[in-house]
């Protein structure tokens, strides 16, 4: 069965510091992988996605993520965090297209940014 693990519940970084949020997935084949961000009281906004091809994907707001098949990981990175990046981040995995395509989400990592 598909599953997603985000091992860090909270992460605190200083503004300007680099960031890495961890995501591990379980799926029998090459999955579709996503990172979404959720600000307080808002819906989920897509940061980036991986379907195939280059394993390093670029997203919005300066985020990137790297798919590592050998580690079943899809970690999110940003070289320099801004105070506005404080939010909750969700990793999600989707199965290959079929009649019941859906996303399974991890439990999220809350990012706090120190001034």
């Amino acid at each position, binding site marked *: 069965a598909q599953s997603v693990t985000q091992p860090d519940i909270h992460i605190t970084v200083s503004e300007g510091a680099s960031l890495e949020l961890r995501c591990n997935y379980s799926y029998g084949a090459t999955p579709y992988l*996503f990172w979404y961000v959720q600000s307080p009281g808002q*819906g*989920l906004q*897509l940061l980036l996605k991986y379907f195939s091809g280059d394993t390093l994907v670029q997203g919005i707001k300066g985020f990137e993520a790297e798919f590592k098949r050998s580690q079943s990981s899809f970690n999110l990175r940003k070289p320099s965090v801004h105070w506005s990046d404080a939010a909750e981040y969700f990793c999600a995995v989707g199965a290959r297209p079929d009649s019941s*395509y*859906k996303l399974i*989400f991890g439990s999220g990592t809350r990012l706090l940014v120190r001034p």
Partner: protein
Amino acid sequence: EAGVAQSPRYKIIEKRQSVAFWCNPISGHATLYWYQQILGQGPKLLIQFQNNGVVDDSQLPKDRFSAERLKGVDSTLKIQPAKLEDSAVYLCASSVGAGELFFGEGSRLTVL
């Protein structure tokens, strides 16, 4: 392009009362999803529609939750009777086939 619309944004009810949430997906999106997001957790899929047919409702508590998408466009999610543990944000999302899901802002339910 208009996004996924949901209403109401907030709802407070007593336990055992009923509540309904409405969702209008992005135009042309055949697939519609309802997710439940309890505080501190990731979204959990409740039900998935493809046009007006149910594709997956395996995690929908059918004794109290129901959902419909009669004309293959907008959808309604109903809870009757509500329990305290139903307090959550109910997120609607839509997509074109497999790939990115587009989410609405959610409907926050508080059951007292």
